[in-house]
């Protein structure tokens, strides 16, 4: 029997495994989390399981259905939770795994990577203070742990998640200090006709905003963040320099600030595509998403034979798209292996994916990535939180243009400055670092390249004893 490895148990992975099981295969299914569900439908540890409605709001139906499918599929697949796929060798068709400190190898005939996404971050002076998290992190604290990231939380950024998380916090009884959107209202308005293609999603967005306004939550659009301020006297002890306020400049150029003890920030999502990178799949810059995305066709086939991609790890599309894409990529995998697939099912998925793509395009227009904001990070501000590197240090490496030894592209900048070289491998600062370097060199961001992936995908401990060969 063909051995298929599926990495990731979010919406894409679940639907992919479901299709593979239907075809009579028993895939090896790897996920880092204990319970699966991915980030959006992350399942809380057992003692925290409340009813789905309270956890997921409008998404409750989808979440419940996905969890049911996950439950059924884990029982039938070769399910390996709490397992990190830290490297892949496509030529040898081997995945290298780490499970609770133990090394393992998975041999496969075909691999389907559904590795998801994380928040796209723009550093703001003070962003490394304890109390500042990503929007996704703020949401996980609430959904999976029943906690707010503080007592009085300000939300900053742009995109649908900004409003959703603020709404969820307010509903849960947290004090929302402010919602600060860097996108001007007019930009969003212009994209409204396209957003109406997906009426329910658009309506939800309007609903969250209106709900927050109606409750008197402070809202500002088209703002420029200036700094996250904190209590530096306590640095190193107590709250460790925790957050006290968020300062910004409004659309009219006036400075303003709000007192808060936590900040959630984020500007859309970016693919967690490290494994695709290590698999040798080429990347292209998607100008609309403003992200580097691994190359694949509409069905999820990549230029590396036997390797498929689905979900946000293959380019941001959201949970609904991920479910469709997971099933579609699994069907492509089956068809390529000469196994029977139902043509009508393939066609239906293709139609649904195409419709979603049109909506997604409007969404990207409504919430464009504020590249200029990322590029404007002050010299003294920390850019790379792993390596303690400032924006000014990166800019210095880019000066004296075109002399050898000067950094004309991202990987050279990394070699010289250590930007993106730390524990997170540039996941967090990479997008902003690229904007800073591109602006300093006077080049479009796609021209300066992207940080190359290097194994391991995430930190991996040196084993205490020699592993058995």
């Amino acid at each position, binding site marked *: 029997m063909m051995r298929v490895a599926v990495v990731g148990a979010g919406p894409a992975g679940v639907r992919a495994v479901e299709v593979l099981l239907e075809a009579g295969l028993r895939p090896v299914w790897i996920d880092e989390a204990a319970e699966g569900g991915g980030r959006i439908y992350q399942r809380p540890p057992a003692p925290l399981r409340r009813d789905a409605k309270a956890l997921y709001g409008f998404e409750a139906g989808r979440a419940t259905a996905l969890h049911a499918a996950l439950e059924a599929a884990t029982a039938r697949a070769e399910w390996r939770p709490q397992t990190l796929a830290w490297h892949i060798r496509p030529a040898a068709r081997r995945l290298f795994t780490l499970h609770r400190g133990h090394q393992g190898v998975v041999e496969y005939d075909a691999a389907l990577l559904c590795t998801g996404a994380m928040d796209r971050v723009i550093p703001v002076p003070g962003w490394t203070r304890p109390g500042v998290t990503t929007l996704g992190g703020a949401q996980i604290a609430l959904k999976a742990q029943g906690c707010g990231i503080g007592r009085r939380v300000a939300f900053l950024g742009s995109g649908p998640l900004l409003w959703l998380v603020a709404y969820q916090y307010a509903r849960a009884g947290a004090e929302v200090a402010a919602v600060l959107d860097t996108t001007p209202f007019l930009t969003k308005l212009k994209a409204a006709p396209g957003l109406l293609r997906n009426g329910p999603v658009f309506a939800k967005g309007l609903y969250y905003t209106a709900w927050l306004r109606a409750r008197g939550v402070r809202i500002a659009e088209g703002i420029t963040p200036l700094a996250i301020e904190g209590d530096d006297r306590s640095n190193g002890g107590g709250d460790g320099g925790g957050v006290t306020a968020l300062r910004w400049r409004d659309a009219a150029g006036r400075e303003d600030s709000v007192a808060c003890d936590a900040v959630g920030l984020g500007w859309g999502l970016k693919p967690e595509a490290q494994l695709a990178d290590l698999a040798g799949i080429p990347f292209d810059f998607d100008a609309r998403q403003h992200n580097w995305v691994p190359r694949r066709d509409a069905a999820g086939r990549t230029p590396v034979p036997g390797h498929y991609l689905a979900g946000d790890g293959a380019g941001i599309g959201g949970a609904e798209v991920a479910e469709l894409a997971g099933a579609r990529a699994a069907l492509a995998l089956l068809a390529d292996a000469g196994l029977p697939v139902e043509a009508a099912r393939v066609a239906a998925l293709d139609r649904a994916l195409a419709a979603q793509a049109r909506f997604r395009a409007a969404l990207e227009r409504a919430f464009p990535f504020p590249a200029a904001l990322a590029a404007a990070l002050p010299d003294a501000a920390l850019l790379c939180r792993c390596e303690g590197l400032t924006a000014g240090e990166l800019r210095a490496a880019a000066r004296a243009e075109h002399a050898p030894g000067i950094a*004309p592209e991202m990987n050279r900048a990394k070699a*010289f400055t250590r930007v993106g070289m730390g524990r997170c491998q540039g996941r967090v600062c990479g997008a902003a670092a690229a904007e800073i370097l591109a602006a300093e060199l006077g080049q479009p961001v796609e021209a300066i390249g992207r940080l190359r992936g290097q*194994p391991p995908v995430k930190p991996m*401990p*040196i084993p205490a004893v*020699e592993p058995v060969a």
Partner: protein
Amino acid sequence: MTAQGVTARGVAARADILVLGGGGVGCSAALHLAQRGRRVLLLERGLVGGQASGVNYGGVRQQGRNPAELPIARRSREVWGRLGALTGTDAEFSVTGHLKLARSAAEEAELVAYREVAEAHGLPLRLIGRNALHRDYPWLGPAVVAGSLAPEDGSANPRLMAPALARAARAAGAEIREHCAITDFAREEGGFVLRSAAGEEFRAPLLLNVAGFWGGAVAEAFGEAVPITPLSPNMVVTEPVRYFIEPNLGVVGGNVYLRQIPRGNVILGGGVGESEPERRWARPLPEVTMQALAHAVRLVPALAGVQVIRSWSGIDGQMPDRIPVIGPSRTTPGLFHAFGFSGHGFQLGPGLGAILAELMTEGRTDVPLDAFRIDRFHPAGGPPH
């Protein structure tokens, strides 16, 4: 005086010397040739220091070198000592000492034997017995039975060295061309004619082949093929942890080597990765990485549990006898080679650049190079067919 370089298609850029390859050796040669008043044009198909010079372990090590290499290594160590004055940066060169470790009586005997070789070349080494070793370096594991310390050795940051030399070479008047891949090699009346993929033409009476692994193809283009193979070091770095390993560590047999930088990261290597030189792709092998980690943790047990955050490789050229090809071509007057460093080029590079500059401008050098001659692989004489 710089080599005038803006070359429209069909208009040749002329220089006294073309340097083919922007690794440490090439950049140092360009610097030293420019300092001797020569018009130098260095051609690099990627970025300077992008392959073997930039991705290696960063050992500035004389101890354990092949005896034939020691005269170059000694000269190079002297250049390393004034790298700051030469280039404006020390490339994080730090004289930490190199401690070579034995894990058996047989390995200890090798350390003892090598000391005599080193002494003959003026390289000071200090043998350390088991008790003293574990007293001075209490973090060494029980598997270690003896050591040999080279106090003058140390390490540097490979990502910085070749670019620093290239900057200095440019400041001294050399022209450095990056992203310039040479596809045609010819020797015509009056010198060499090289053509790039973009159709540019470069001419000079002298040519220095310092193209690393790809230097083998250059030699072949001039009728002197050598048995070179790609060598891809399997390199790993950990997260920063408390700084406690001062010396650069090696072992007899070489299956692992490691050092810690004051920032706290531990850099270690061992074994070889995989590569596809035709697309300049190299990557460590996870199976090899795990073996190197196991060797490392036996040397320094405190490394258990420290997180590996990154691994990498690159492409060097390896010769069957594990020493480079250095010296004049046997087929083509005006052509000089220095490639196939078999993993030894980082330490040798800065000094060898100076030696090559001597050789190419004066026709001679005091440093014995006979062991590295290009025709040594065909004892019957003459190139193979």
